[in-house]
């Protein structure tokens, strides 16, 4: 979002003003919720993750250094790590039933039905699957390019070129004014 808003939020965080959390939720909540859901693949769990992430954000707010990362990058790191920890603690409980539930919920709930997500879905669809997979591996699963190459069984060179193209496509989308309107719509709803 605008750097001005970012600045304002950071200031509020440093003053330990609770309004910061409200603003963060309004402007990043949906995205972070999406990130959490992408990792844990369960909406209920993703809600827990989001809640815990916000608590961490609040507690660690004095550790945020704007010179080292954009506000979103920092928020993303916390959310993603919280989600991964959550997933790990779930998996160590080795509850297979829950994992089955996870896939059910994921299939029914998130991906298809919600109408307010359709616009974003459309945009995402503009990026071909093969590029998306690489982007996801990199951004959400935190794989290195080498790991993505091993995991997806795609040569490293192909990973690199797909990443490049994927990012270019991405830039096309969020560079277009359409997306801004969409994103703003999404945040205001």
């Amino acid at each position: 979002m605008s750097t001005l808003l970012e600045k304002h939020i950071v200031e509020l965080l440093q003053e330990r003003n609770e309004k910061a959390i409200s603003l963060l939720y309004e402007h990043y909540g949906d995205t972070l919720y999406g990130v959490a859901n992408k990792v844990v693949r369960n909406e209920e769990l993703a809600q827990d993750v989001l809640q815990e992430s916000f608590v961490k954000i609040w507690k660690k707010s004095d550790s945020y250094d704007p010179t080292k990362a954009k506000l979103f990058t920092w928020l993303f790191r916390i959310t993603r790590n919280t989600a991964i920890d959550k997933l790990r603690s779930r998996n160590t409980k080795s509850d297979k039933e829950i994992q089955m539930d996870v896939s059910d919920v994921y299939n029914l709930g998130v991906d298809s039905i919600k109408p307010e997500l359709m616009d974003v879905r459309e945009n995402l669809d503009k990026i071909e699957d093969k590029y998306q997979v690489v982007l996801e591996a990199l951004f959400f699963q935190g794989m290195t390019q080498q790991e993505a190459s091993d995991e997806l069984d795609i040569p490293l060179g192909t990973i690199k070129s797909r990443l490049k193209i994927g990012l270019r496509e991405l830039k096309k989308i969020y560079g277009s004014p359409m997306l801004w309107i969409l994103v703003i719509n999404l945040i205001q709803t």
Partner: protein
Amino acid sequence: MKDKIKIFLDSDLLEKYLLGTTNAQENLQVERYIAMYPQVRETYDELQENLEAFAKLHAIKTPEGLKQRIIARIKSEHVGRKRFFRYAVAASLATLLFAGASYFFYDQNQSLQEENEMVNNKIQLLEEDMKERLEDVRNQFIVLNNPKTKKYNVNGNKKAKELKAIAYINPVKKLSYINVSKLPNLPENQCFQMWAEVNGKMVNLGVIQEATDKEKLMALPYAEEAVGYITIEPKGGNETPTVENIVANIAY
């Protein structure tokens, strides 16, 4: 130099840093590269933009009420923190108080122990003293009560005509006592002193205090053919008797 940058950018370290999966050492390395090389900084910024854009594509509308739950939770954490500090302050005070009290009690205990030791010593001394006195009284009783005890009246010579004393000697029990009942007045700077010659040796038996010793029997060291003497000596007593000042003698 360019190779170095290329190797770094190819290493995935920057991507790992972006996601926060680097360790502390790697963080330092990446941050150094970002600070030193504009090309790395540019790539990093671009990655951040891409990340945000890509993440936004996956945004999902958060469910109703979640925001309120989160805000409420954070408020309670905030309060919890305040409460924690309050508890911390209270705990610190309590600790301080406890330390103070501990020191006070330790100190008190220490002085009580010292006092206890002193009292014990005193009791022991008293016990010994009492035993001694009891023994003395017993001996006096034996001497006075024994039919074999001989009673001698001792009178002063011309230097102390008023002097009157009674000696009790028991040769069987080998005990002898003397009771000085009357002493003539002496100048301030003089006193009566009691001696005994035992086996050719002169033994100092101490100064006779008229007031306190009137009712008291003084033990005499017993020996065959010992002689007791009373002399006038300078106040405080003398180390050897002044022979010309002998006022009475008791041969027993």
